[in-house]
Protein backbone atom coordinates (compact mmCIF):
# COMPACT_ATOMS: atom_id res chain seq x y z
CA UNK A 1 0.00 0.00 0.00
CA UNK A 2 2.72 2.40 1.06
CA UNK A 3 4.61 1.44 -2.05
CA UNK A 4 1.68 2.35 -4.25
CA UNK A 5 1.35 5.78 -2.68
CA UNK A 6 5.05 6.42 -3.26
CA UNK A 7 4.67 5.37 -6.87
CA UNK A 8 1.72 7.68 -7.36
CA UNK A 9 3.61 10.55 -5.77
CA UNK A 10 6.43 9.98 -8.23
CA UNK A 11 4.00 10.01 -11.15
CA UNK A 12 2.41 13.22 -9.91
CA UNK A 13 5.83 14.85 -9.53
CA UNK A 14 6.70 14.02 -13.13
CA UNK A 15 3.45 15.59 -14.34
CA UNK A 16 4.12 18.64 -12.20
CA UNK A 17 7.49 18.96 -13.92
CA UNK A 18 5.85 18.63 -17.34
CA UNK A 19 3.07 21.14 -16.71
CA UNK A 20 4.76 23.68 -14.42
CA UNK A 21 6.21 26.04 -17.06
CA UNK A 22 2.94 26.00 -19.00
CA UNK A 23 0.79 26.83 -15.99
CA UNK A 24 3.18 29.62 -15.05
CA UNK A 25 2.88 31.23 -18.48
CA UNK A 26 -0.91 31.14 -18.37
CA UNK A 27 -1.05 32.62 -14.86
CA UNK A 28 1.44 35.38 -15.61
CA UNK A 29 -0.31 36.39 -18.80
CA UNK A 30 -2.97 37.95 -16.56
CA UNK A 31 -0.46 39.65 -14.29
CA UNK A 32 -0.39 43.45 -14.04
CA UNK A 33 3.32 43.51 -13.24
CA UNK A 34 5.57 43.61 -16.26
CA UNK A 35 8.40 41.92 -14.44
CA UNK A 36 7.02 38.38 -14.21
CA UNK A 37 8.26 38.11 -10.65
CA UNK A 38 5.24 38.07 -8.40
CA UNK A 39 1.57 38.09 -9.17
CA UNK A 40 0.29 41.59 -8.48
CA UNK A 41 -3.15 41.80 -9.98
CA UNK A 42 -5.44 40.65 -12.78
CA UNK A 43 -5.36 42.34 -16.17
CA UNK A 44 -6.14 41.68 -19.83
CA UNK A 45 -3.75 44.43 -20.94
CA UNK A 46 -1.22 42.07 -22.53
CA UNK A 47 -3.87 40.52 -24.73
CA UNK A 48 -4.75 43.99 -26.00
CA UNK A 49 -1.16 44.92 -26.78
CA UNK A 50 -0.73 41.54 -28.41
CA UNK A 51 -3.52 42.15 -30.89
CA UNK A 52 -2.12 45.52 -31.87
CA UNK A 53 1.31 44.00 -32.50
CA UNK A 54 1.26 43.73 -36.26
CA UNK A 55 4.58 41.96 -36.76
CA UNK A 56 3.66 39.32 -34.21
CA UNK A 57 0.35 38.60 -35.91
CA UNK A 58 2.07 38.51 -39.28
CA UNK A 59 4.54 35.95 -37.92
CA UNK A 60 1.58 33.95 -36.66
CA UNK A 61 -0.04 33.87 -40.11
CA UNK A 62 3.24 32.95 -41.74
CA UNK A 63 3.57 30.05 -39.33
CA UNK A 64 0.11 28.79 -40.19
CA UNK A 65 0.68 29.14 -43.94
CA UNK A 66 3.98 27.26 -43.72
CA UNK A 67 2.49 24.55 -41.51
CA UNK A 68 -0.63 23.98 -43.62
CA UNK A 69 1.17 24.05 -46.96
CA UNK A 70 4.07 21.87 -45.90
CA UNK A 71 1.74 19.41 -44.15
CA UNK A 72 -0.45 19.13 -47.22
CA UNK A 73 2.42 18.56 -49.64
CA UNK A 74 4.36 16.21 -47.41
CA UNK A 75 1.25 14.18 -46.63
CA UNK A 76 0.48 13.72 -50.32
CA UNK A 77 4.05 12.89 -51.29
CA UNK A 78 4.56 10.79 -48.15
CA UNK A 79 1.47 8.68 -48.76
CA UNK A 80 2.24 8.05 -52.42
CA UNK A 81 5.84 7.26 -51.56
CA UNK A 82 4.97 4.84 -48.78
CA UNK A 83 2.73 2.96 -51.21
CA UNK A 84 5.38 2.98 -53.93
CA UNK A 85 8.01 1.66 -51.55
CA UNK A 86 5.68 -1.03 -50.26
CA UNK A 87 4.32 -2.17 -53.60
CA UNK A 88 7.11 -1.83 -56.13
CA UNK A 89 10.74 -2.69 -56.49
CA UNK A 90 13.03 -0.38 -58.36
CA UNK A 91 16.72 0.22 -58.79
CA UNK A 92 18.34 1.76 -55.73
CA UNK A 93 15.26 1.25 -53.55
CA UNK A 94 17.35 0.11 -50.59
CA UNK A 95 19.52 3.19 -50.83
CA UNK A 96 16.52 5.53 -51.06
CA UNK A 97 14.98 3.85 -47.98
CA UNK A 98 18.22 4.44 -46.06
CA UNK A 99 18.22 8.10 -47.06
CA UNK A 100 14.70 8.52 -45.71
CA UNK A 101 15.82 7.84 -42.16
CA UNK A 102 18.46 10.56 -42.27
CA UNK A 103 16.18 13.54 -41.50
CA UNK A 104 14.77 11.61 -38.53
CA UNK A 105 18.06 10.76 -36.86
CA UNK A 106 20.47 13.58 -37.65
CA UNK A 107 20.59 16.69 -35.46
CA UNK A 108 18.21 19.29 -36.86
CA UNK A 109 21.00 21.84 -37.03
CA UNK A 110 22.89 19.75 -39.56
CA UNK A 111 19.84 19.50 -41.81
CA UNK A 112 19.23 23.23 -41.35
CA UNK A 113 22.69 24.36 -42.36
CA UNK A 114 22.97 21.92 -45.25
CA UNK A 115 19.65 23.12 -46.69
CA UNK A 116 20.77 26.72 -46.21
CA UNK A 117 24.03 25.96 -48.04
CA UNK A 118 22.17 24.43 -50.97
CA UNK A 119 19.72 27.33 -51.22
CA UNK A 120 22.67 29.69 -51.30
CA UNK A 121 24.41 27.57 -53.89
CA UNK A 122 21.30 27.57 -56.10
CA UNK A 123 20.85 31.30 -55.47
CA UNK A 124 17.29 30.83 -54.20
CA UNK A 125 15.63 33.72 -52.40
CA UNK A 126 15.33 32.90 -48.72
CA UNK A 127 11.66 33.31 -47.91
CA UNK A 128 8.38 31.48 -47.63
CA UNK A 129 9.30 29.13 -50.45
CA UNK A 130 12.56 27.95 -48.91
CA UNK A 131 10.89 27.73 -45.52
CA UNK A 132 8.08 25.53 -46.86
CA UNK A 133 10.56 23.41 -48.79
CA UNK A 134 12.64 22.84 -45.65
CA UNK A 135 9.59 21.88 -43.61
CA UNK A 136 8.58 19.44 -46.33
CA UNK A 137 12.10 18.04 -46.23
CA UNK A 138 11.91 17.05 -42.58
CA UNK A 139 8.22 16.04 -42.53
CA UNK A 140 8.02 13.54 -45.40
CA UNK A 141 9.90 10.69 -43.67
CA UNK A 142 7.57 10.89 -40.67
CA UNK A 143 4.51 10.61 -42.93
CA UNK A 144 6.08 7.75 -44.89
CA UNK A 145 6.79 5.75 -41.74
CA UNK A 146 3.38 6.27 -40.24
CA UNK A 147 1.65 5.20 -43.50
CA UNK A 148 4.12 2.38 -44.03
CA UNK A 149 3.33 0.78 -40.65
CA UNK A 150 -0.26 0.32 -41.80
CA UNK A 151 0.71 -0.88 -45.27
CA UNK A 152 3.01 -3.48 -43.77
CA UNK A 153 0.05 -4.93 -41.88
CA UNK A 154 -2.23 -5.10 -44.93
CA UNK A 155 -2.92 -8.45 -46.45
CA UNK A 156 -0.68 -8.79 -49.55
CA UNK A 157 -3.40 -10.89 -51.20
CA UNK A 158 -5.40 -7.69 -51.54
CA UNK A 159 -3.24 -6.65 -54.48
CA UNK A 160 -3.66 -9.95 -56.30
CA UNK A 161 -7.39 -10.05 -55.65
CA UNK A 162 -7.76 -6.57 -57.02
CA UNK A 163 -5.63 -7.40 -60.03
CA UNK A 164 -7.65 -10.54 -60.71
CA UNK A 165 -10.75 -8.41 -60.77
CA UNK A 166 -9.15 -6.40 -63.54
CA UNK A 167 -8.21 -3.29 -61.59
CA UNK A 168 -5.10 -1.37 -62.68
CA UNK A 169 -2.47 0.10 -60.33
CA UNK A 170 -4.31 3.39 -59.95
CA UNK A 171 -7.70 1.76 -59.28
CA UNK A 172 -6.22 -0.62 -56.75
CA UNK A 173 -4.56 2.26 -54.94
CA UNK A 174 -7.60 4.51 -54.99
CA UNK A 175 -10.36 2.08 -54.16
CA UNK A 176 -8.72 -0.70 -52.22
CA UNK A 177 -5.67 0.64 -50.47
CA UNK A 178 -6.25 4.34 -49.84
CA UNK A 179 -9.39 3.95 -47.68
CA UNK A 180 -7.63 1.63 -45.26
CA UNK A 181 -4.67 3.99 -44.97
CA UNK A 182 -6.71 6.89 -43.57
CA UNK A 183 -5.62 6.41 -39.92
CA UNK A 184 -1.94 6.31 -40.92
CA UNK A 185 -2.33 9.34 -43.15
CA UNK A 186 -4.12 11.29 -40.43
CA UNK A 187 -1.51 10.57 -37.80
CA UNK A 188 1.29 11.29 -40.28
CA UNK A 189 -0.32 14.61 -41.17
CA UNK A 190 -0.84 15.51 -37.50
CA UNK A 191 2.79 14.71 -36.83
CA UNK A 192 3.96 16.81 -39.78
CA UNK A 193 1.76 19.69 -38.66
CA UNK A 194 3.03 19.72 -35.08
CA UNK A 195 6.64 19.29 -36.21
CA UNK A 196 6.23 22.30 -38.46
CA UNK A 197 4.60 24.45 -35.76
CA UNK A 198 7.27 23.52 -33.25
CA UNK A 199 10.35 23.85 -35.42
CA UNK A 200 12.88 26.46 -34.34
CA UNK A 201 16.24 25.23 -35.53
CA UNK A 202 15.59 24.61 -39.21
CA UNK A 203 13.46 27.74 -39.64
CA UNK A 204 16.21 29.73 -37.96
CA UNK A 205 18.52 28.99 -40.86
CA UNK A 206 16.16 28.90 -43.82
CA UNK A 207 13.79 31.84 -43.27
CA UNK A 208 14.26 35.09 -45.17
CA UNK A 209 13.44 38.74 -44.47
CA UNK A 210 9.76 38.49 -45.38
CA UNK A 211 9.08 35.17 -43.70
CA UNK A 212 9.38 35.67 -39.98
CA UNK A 213 7.59 32.80 -38.27
CA UNK A 214 6.21 32.69 -34.78
CA UNK A 215 9.02 30.67 -33.18
CA UNK A 216 11.61 33.04 -34.66
CA UNK A 217 9.63 36.07 -33.56
CA UNK A 218 9.22 34.69 -30.05
CA UNK A 219 12.91 33.87 -29.93
CA UNK A 220 13.87 37.44 -30.69
CA UNK A 221 11.21 38.78 -28.32
CA UNK A 222 12.52 36.65 -25.46
CA UNK A 223 16.05 37.74 -26.22
CA UNK A 224 15.23 41.42 -26.29
CA UNK A 225 13.68 41.55 -22.88
CA UNK A 226 10.73 40.95 -20.68
CA UNK A 227 7.66 40.70 -22.84
CA UNK A 228 4.39 39.80 -21.15
CA UNK A 229 2.81 39.66 -24.62
CA UNK A 230 4.69 36.39 -25.09
CA UNK A 231 2.79 35.00 -22.08
CA UNK A 232 -0.51 36.10 -23.58
CA UNK A 233 0.33 34.67 -26.98
CA UNK A 234 1.48 31.39 -25.45
CA UNK A 235 -1.77 31.13 -23.51
CA UNK A 236 -3.82 31.62 -26.67
CA UNK A 237 -1.78 29.01 -28.54
CA UNK A 238 -2.14 26.61 -25.62
CA UNK A 239 -5.89 27.06 -25.40
CA UNK A 240 -6.29 26.57 -29.15
CA UNK A 241 -4.13 23.43 -29.29
CA UNK A 242 -5.77 21.90 -26.23
CA UNK A 243 -9.24 22.60 -27.59
CA UNK A 244 -8.44 21.01 -30.94
CA UNK A 245 -7.02 17.93 -29.26
CA UNK A 246 -9.97 17.70 -26.88
CA UNK A 247 -12.47 17.91 -29.75
CA UNK A 248 -10.48 15.36 -31.68
CA UNK A 249 -10.42 12.90 -28.80
CA UNK A 250 -14.09 13.43 -28.01
CA UNK A 251 -14.99 12.74 -31.63
CA UNK A 252 -12.91 9.59 -31.64
CA UNK A 253 -14.44 8.42 -28.39
CA UNK A 254 -17.93 9.03 -29.74
CA UNK A 255 -17.27 7.06 -32.92
CA UNK A 256 -15.77 4.29 -30.81
CA UNK A 257 -18.93 4.20 -28.70
CA UNK A 258 -21.07 4.06 -31.83
CA UNK A 259 -19.14 1.07 -33.05
CA UNK A 260 -19.59 -0.64 -29.72
CA UNK A 261 -23.34 0.02 -29.83
CA UNK A 262 -23.59 -1.46 -33.28
Amino acid at each position, binding site marked *: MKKRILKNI*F*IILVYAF*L*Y*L*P*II*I*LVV*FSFNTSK*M*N*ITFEGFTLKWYQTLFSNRSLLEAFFNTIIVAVTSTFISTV*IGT*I*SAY*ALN*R*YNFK*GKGFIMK*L*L*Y*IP*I*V*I*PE*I*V*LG*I*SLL*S*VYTLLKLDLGMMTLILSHI*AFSIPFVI*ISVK*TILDDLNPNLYDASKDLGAG*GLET*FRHIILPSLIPGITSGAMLAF*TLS*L*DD*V*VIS*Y*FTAGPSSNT*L*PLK*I*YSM*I*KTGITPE*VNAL*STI*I*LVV*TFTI*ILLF*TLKQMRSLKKEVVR
Partner: protein
Amino acid sequence: MKDKLFKKIITIPVIVYALVLILLPLIYIFILSFLKSDSYGGVINVFNLGNYLKIFDMVYIKVFVQSFLIALVTTLICILIAYPFCLFISQKKKKTQTLLMALVILPFLTNSLIRTYGWIVLLRKEGVINTILLNLNIIDNPLSLMYNNLGIIIGMVYTLLPFMILPLYSSISKIDNRLIEASKDLGAGSMATFFKVIVPSTVTGLFNGSLMVFIPCIGYFFIADLLGGGKLMLLGNLIKNQFLTARNWPFGAAISITLLIITFVLVKLYKKTGGKMDDLGGF
Protein backbone atom coordinates in the same frame (compact mmCIF):
# COMPACT_ATOMS: atom_id res chain seq x y z
CA MET B 1 1.26 -0.83 -69.80
CA LYS B 2 -0.86 1.60 -67.80
CA ASP B 3 0.39 -0.14 -64.71
CA LYS B 4 3.99 0.59 -65.62
CA LEU B 5 3.19 4.25 -66.12
CA PHE B 6 1.45 4.33 -62.74
CA LYS B 7 4.45 2.74 -61.11
CA LYS B 8 6.74 5.33 -62.67
CA ILE B 9 4.56 8.22 -61.60
CA ILE B 10 4.33 7.14 -58.00
CA THR B 11 7.96 6.16 -57.54
CA ILE B 12 9.38 9.39 -58.95
CA PRO B 13 8.39 11.73 -56.05
CA VAL B 14 10.18 9.75 -53.38
CA ILE B 15 13.31 9.39 -55.50
CA VAL B 16 13.40 13.08 -56.36
CA TYR B 17 12.73 14.00 -52.74
CA ALA B 18 15.42 11.73 -51.32
CA LEU B 19 18.03 12.81 -53.83
CA VAL B 20 17.33 16.55 -53.94
CA LEU B 21 16.32 17.39 -50.39
CA ILE B 22 18.40 14.84 -48.45
CA LEU B 23 21.36 13.59 -50.45
CA LEU B 24 22.27 16.77 -52.33
CA PRO B 25 22.48 19.00 -49.23
CA LEU B 26 24.60 16.44 -47.40
CA ILE B 27 26.95 15.93 -50.34
CA TYR B 28 27.28 19.66 -50.69
CA ILE B 29 28.30 20.25 -47.07
CA PHE B 30 30.60 17.26 -47.36
CA ILE B 31 32.39 18.96 -50.27
CA LEU B 32 32.24 22.31 -48.48
CA SER B 33 34.02 20.79 -45.49
CA PHE B 34 37.15 20.21 -47.60
CA LEU B 35 37.27 23.75 -49.00
CA LYS B 36 38.92 26.80 -47.53
CA SER B 37 37.36 30.01 -46.29
CA ASP B 38 38.92 33.38 -46.93
CA SER B 39 39.14 35.58 -43.88
CA TYR B 40 35.90 37.38 -44.58
CA GLY B 41 33.26 34.86 -45.38
CA GLY B 42 33.96 33.71 -48.93
CA VAL B 43 34.80 30.14 -49.90
CA ILE B 44 37.96 29.34 -51.86
CA ASN B 45 37.89 26.21 -54.01
CA VAL B 46 41.07 24.63 -52.69
CA PHE B 47 40.97 21.08 -51.40
CA ASN B 48 42.41 20.77 -47.92
CA LEU B 49 41.99 18.91 -44.66
CA GLY B 50 42.55 22.02 -42.56
CA ASN B 51 38.97 22.21 -41.29
CA TYR B 52 39.12 18.71 -39.85
CA LEU B 53 42.54 19.30 -38.33
CA LYS B 54 41.20 22.49 -36.75
CA ILE B 55 38.61 20.43 -34.84
CA PHE B 56 41.53 18.92 -32.90
CA ASP B 57 42.48 22.33 -31.59
CA MET B 58 42.05 22.34 -27.79
CA VAL B 59 39.48 25.12 -28.05
CA TYR B 60 37.15 23.02 -30.16
CA ILE B 61 37.88 19.70 -28.45
CA LYS B 62 36.62 21.45 -25.33
CA VAL B 63 33.36 22.29 -27.09
CA PHE B 64 32.93 18.67 -28.18
CA VAL B 65 33.60 17.40 -24.66
CA GLN B 66 31.23 19.93 -23.07
CA SER B 67 28.43 19.09 -25.51
CA PHE B 68 28.79 15.36 -25.02
CA LEU B 69 28.87 15.73 -21.24
CA ILE B 70 25.72 17.84 -21.24
CA ALA B 71 24.04 15.39 -23.63
CA LEU B 72 25.14 12.42 -21.54
CA VAL B 73 23.92 13.90 -18.26
CA THR B 74 20.64 14.89 -19.92
CA THR B 75 20.18 11.34 -21.26
CA LEU B 76 20.94 9.76 -17.88
CA ILE B 77 18.52 12.05 -16.04
CA CYS B 78 15.86 11.32 -18.66
CA ILE B 79 16.35 7.57 -18.07
CA LEU B 80 16.19 8.01 -14.30
CA ILE B 81 12.89 9.86 -14.60
CA ALA B 82 11.34 7.95 -17.48
CA TYR B 83 12.15 4.38 -16.42
CA PRO B 84 10.32 4.25 -13.09
CA PHE B 85 7.63 6.51 -14.54
CA CYS B 86 6.87 4.10 -17.39
CA LEU B 87 7.13 1.11 -15.08
CA PHE B 88 4.59 2.55 -12.62
CA ILE B 89 2.27 3.65 -15.40
CA SER B 90 2.33 0.22 -17.00
CA GLN B 91 0.95 -1.22 -13.75
CA LYS B 92 -2.21 0.85 -14.07
CA LYS B 93 -5.40 -0.16 -15.86
CA LYS B 94 -5.20 -0.10 -19.67
CA LYS B 95 -7.61 2.83 -19.99
CA THR B 96 -5.75 4.90 -17.39
CA GLN B 97 -2.51 4.14 -19.20
CA THR B 98 -3.77 5.60 -22.47
CA LEU B 99 -5.00 8.72 -20.71
CA LEU B 100 -1.74 9.18 -18.79
CA MET B 101 0.37 8.80 -21.91
CA ALA B 102 -1.80 11.35 -23.73
CA LEU B 103 -1.13 13.73 -20.83
CA VAL B 104 2.59 13.27 -21.35
CA ILE B 105 2.41 14.30 -25.00
CA LEU B 106 -0.04 17.16 -24.55
CA PRO B 107 2.40 19.88 -23.36
CA PHE B 108 4.72 19.07 -26.22
CA LEU B 109 2.22 20.09 -28.84
CA THR B 110 3.07 23.70 -28.01
CA ASN B 111 6.21 25.35 -29.22
CA SER B 112 9.40 24.37 -27.42
CA LEU B 113 10.51 28.00 -27.21
CA ILE B 114 7.38 28.95 -25.36
CA ARG B 115 8.03 26.23 -22.82
CA THR B 116 11.65 27.27 -22.49
CA TYR B 117 10.44 30.80 -21.80
CA GLY B 118 8.25 29.38 -19.04
CA TRP B 119 11.38 27.97 -17.45
CA ILE B 120 13.08 31.35 -17.55
CA VAL B 121 10.20 32.78 -15.55
CA LEU B 122 10.53 29.92 -13.07
CA LEU B 123 14.30 29.74 -12.71
CA ARG B 124 15.37 33.36 -12.60
CA LYS B 125 17.07 34.73 -9.49
CA GLU B 126 13.85 36.52 -8.60
CA GLY B 127 11.76 33.95 -10.42
CA VAL B 128 8.90 31.88 -9.09
CA ILE B 129 10.91 29.03 -7.56
CA ASN B 130 13.36 31.24 -5.70
CA THR B 131 10.60 33.55 -4.48
CA ILE B 132 8.61 30.64 -3.07
CA LEU B 133 11.63 29.01 -1.42
CA LEU B 134 12.72 32.33 0.09
CA ASN B 135 9.26 33.09 1.43
CA LEU B 136 9.01 29.66 3.01
CA ASN B 137 12.41 30.28 4.61
CA ILE B 138 13.79 27.12 3.07
CA ILE B 139 16.74 29.05 1.66
CA ASP B 140 18.40 32.27 2.75
CA ASN B 141 19.91 33.27 -0.56
CA PRO B 142 18.44 32.76 -4.02
CA LEU B 143 19.73 29.68 -5.82
CA SER B 144 21.51 30.00 -9.16
CA LEU B 145 19.18 27.89 -11.26
CA MET B 146 19.88 29.36 -14.67
CA TYR B 147 22.67 31.12 -16.56
CA ASN B 148 24.73 28.03 -15.81
CA ASN B 149 24.93 24.34 -16.78
CA LEU B 150 22.10 23.46 -14.41
CA GLY B 151 19.75 25.71 -16.37
CA ILE B 152 20.80 24.15 -19.67
CA ILE B 153 20.29 20.62 -18.33
CA ILE B 154 16.87 21.42 -16.87
CA GLY B 155 15.82 22.87 -20.23
CA MET B 156 17.18 19.92 -22.20
CA VAL B 157 15.66 17.27 -19.92
CA TYR B 158 12.33 19.02 -20.09
CA THR B 159 12.32 19.37 -23.87
CA LEU B 160 13.52 15.84 -24.59
CA LEU B 161 11.88 13.77 -21.83
CA PRO B 162 8.94 12.56 -23.97
CA PHE B 163 11.38 11.14 -26.50
CA MET B 164 12.62 8.88 -23.72
CA ILE B 165 9.20 8.11 -22.25
CA LEU B 166 7.50 7.07 -25.50
CA PRO B 167 9.88 4.28 -26.67
CA LEU B 168 10.46 3.10 -23.10
CA TYR B 169 6.76 2.87 -22.42
CA SER B 170 6.12 0.95 -25.59
CA SER B 171 8.82 -1.61 -24.79
CA ILE B 172 7.86 -1.90 -21.12
CA SER B 173 4.19 -2.37 -21.91
CA LYS B 174 5.11 -5.18 -24.29
CA ILE B 175 6.69 -7.28 -21.52
CA ASP B 176 4.59 -10.34 -20.93
CA ASN B 177 3.28 -10.19 -17.36
CA ARG B 178 3.47 -13.97 -17.18
CA LEU B 179 7.24 -13.69 -17.47
CA ILE B 180 7.39 -11.50 -14.38
CA GLU B 181 5.08 -13.83 -12.49
CA ALA B 182 7.11 -16.83 -13.58
CA SER B 183 10.24 -15.18 -12.32
CA LYS B 184 8.59 -14.49 -8.98
CA ASP B 185 7.24 -18.04 -8.80
CA LEU B 186 10.75 -19.29 -9.27
CA GLY B 187 11.64 -17.38 -6.14
CA ALA B 188 13.38 -14.39 -7.62
CA GLY B 189 13.12 -11.22 -5.51
CA SER B 190 11.72 -8.07 -7.04
CA MET B 191 15.25 -6.71 -7.52
CA ALA B 192 16.34 -9.84 -9.34
CA THR B 193 13.17 -9.83 -11.43
CA PHE B 194 13.79 -6.21 -12.33
CA PHE B 195 17.40 -6.70 -13.44
CA LYS B 196 17.08 -10.17 -14.95
CA VAL B 197 13.68 -9.96 -16.62
CA ILE B 198 12.49 -6.38 -17.06
CA VAL B 199 15.71 -4.56 -17.94
CA PRO B 200 16.92 -7.02 -20.59
CA SER B 201 13.63 -6.88 -22.44
CA THR B 202 13.68 -3.08 -22.57
CA VAL B 203 17.22 -2.63 -23.86
CA THR B 204 16.10 -1.62 -27.35
CA GLY B 205 13.56 0.85 -26.00
CA LEU B 206 16.21 2.26 -23.72
CA PHE B 207 18.67 2.61 -26.56
CA ASN B 208 16.05 4.11 -28.84
CA GLY B 209 15.12 6.72 -26.22
CA SER B 210 18.76 7.51 -25.45
CA LEU B 211 19.46 8.08 -29.12
CA MET B 212 16.46 10.38 -29.52
CA VAL B 213 17.55 12.38 -26.47
CA PHE B 214 21.31 12.42 -26.91
CA ILE B 215 21.49 13.52 -30.56
CA PRO B 216 19.07 16.48 -30.54
CA CYS B 217 20.63 17.63 -27.28
CA ILE B 218 23.87 18.37 -29.11
CA GLY B 219 22.14 20.64 -31.59
CA TYR B 220 19.64 22.64 -29.48
CA PHE B 221 21.56 25.90 -29.46
CA PHE B 222 18.58 27.97 -28.38
CA ILE B 223 18.31 26.26 -25.01
CA ALA B 224 22.01 26.89 -24.29
CA ASP B 225 21.50 30.49 -25.43
CA LEU B 226 18.42 31.23 -23.36
CA LEU B 227 19.06 29.25 -20.18
CA GLY B 228 22.87 29.17 -20.19
CA GLY B 229 23.54 32.89 -20.57
CA GLY B 230 25.75 32.41 -23.63
CA LYS B 231 28.58 31.16 -21.41
CA LEU B 232 28.70 27.54 -22.47
CA MET B 233 29.30 26.80 -26.10
CA LEU B 234 27.71 23.60 -27.34
CA LEU B 235 28.33 22.07 -30.76
CA GLY B 236 25.02 23.52 -31.95
CA ASN B 237 26.14 27.01 -30.96
CA LEU B 238 29.53 26.47 -32.57
CA ILE B 239 27.99 25.37 -35.87
CA LYS B 240 25.50 28.22 -35.74
CA ASN B 241 28.30 30.71 -35.09
CA GLN B 242 30.38 29.41 -37.97
CA PHE B 243 27.46 29.85 -40.32
CA LEU B 244 25.83 32.98 -38.96
CA THR B 245 28.57 35.08 -37.36
CA ALA B 246 32.11 33.84 -37.91
CA ARG B 247 31.42 33.36 -41.62
CA ASN B 248 33.52 30.21 -41.82
CA TRP B 249 31.16 27.86 -43.65
CA PRO B 250 33.74 25.19 -44.46
CA PHE B 251 34.68 24.80 -40.80
CA GLY B 252 31.00 24.73 -39.81
CA ALA B 253 30.46 22.07 -42.47
CA ALA B 254 33.38 19.99 -41.13
CA ILE B 255 31.91 20.04 -37.61
CA SER B 256 28.52 19.04 -39.03
CA ILE B 257 30.02 16.13 -40.95
CA THR B 258 31.85 14.95 -37.81
CA LEU B 259 28.58 15.13 -35.92
CA LEU B 260 26.87 13.20 -38.71
CA ILE B 261 29.45 10.41 -38.53
CA ILE B 262 29.03 10.16 -34.75
CA THR B 263 25.26 9.94 -35.27
CA PHE B 264 25.63 7.14 -37.81
CA VAL B 265 27.89 5.18 -35.44
CA LEU B 266 25.31 5.49 -32.66
CA VAL B 267 22.52 4.38 -34.99
CA LYS B 268 24.61 1.35 -36.06
CA LEU B 269 25.02 0.43 -32.40
CA TYR B 270 21.29 0.77 -31.91
CA LYS B 271 20.62 -1.58 -34.80
CA LYS B 272 23.10 -4.04 -33.32
CA THR B 273 21.02 -4.23 -30.13
CA GLY B 274 18.12 -5.27 -32.35
CA GLY B 275 16.51 -1.84 -32.75
CA LYS B 276 14.34 -1.17 -35.78
CA MET B 277 14.74 2.05 -37.75
CA ASP B 278 10.98 2.50 -37.97
CA ASP B 279 10.76 2.77 -34.20
CA LEU B 280 12.95 5.87 -34.08
CA GLY B 281 11.45 9.32 -33.97
CA GLY B 282 8.79 8.70 -31.37
CA PHE B 283 6.79 6.01 -33.14
